[in-house]
């Protein structure tokens, strides 16, 4: 493949990742809403650990496990951030 063809394929994958990231964030928000209704903590270390362990066990490379964990740390940090923003917005609307 040429560089242009490879970059076209990367662009296609980036668009797919974008869609998947947002789809994942939407699901995380739904969980956030349920947690709020049930008075559950936003931070669930046990769940995060399970995600990292599962991703490492399914990792076929070429990214190493450390890279996979760092990527998912960012995804989870951003999901939590979104959850906090939405929760605070809901609080303001009620006030």
């Amino acid at each position, binding site marked *: 493949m040429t560089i242009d063809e490879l970059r076209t394929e990367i662009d296609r994958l980036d668009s797919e990742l974008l869609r998947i990231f947002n789809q994942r964030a939407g699901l995380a928000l739904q969980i956030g809403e349920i947690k709020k209704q049930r008075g559950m*903590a*936003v*931070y669930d*270390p046990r769940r995060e*650990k399970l995600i990292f362990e599962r991703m490492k066990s399914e990792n076929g490379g070429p990214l190493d496990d*450390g890279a996979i*964990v*760092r990527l998912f*740390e*960012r995804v989870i*940090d951003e999901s*939590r*951030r979104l959850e*906090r923003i939405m929760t*605070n917005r809901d609080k303001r609307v009620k006030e």
Partner: protein
Amino acid sequence: MLIIMKKNADEQALVQIKEYLINRNFDIHQSTGANRTIIGVIGDTDSLDQEKLEKMPGVHQVVRIAKEE
């Protein structure tokens, strides 16, 4: 603010500090390296007690980012 964990900090120490920050509505950027973990704290960190954070288990160093002029 950056919270640099000790090389030998155990998982429970990391959980404790993340819980402390998240419960206070701070966003965090965790970065796990081969030897140590660094937590970037996002938000108005003026309200955070640096000394208290430094005394928490597993914390090596807490670095405040200087405000720009």
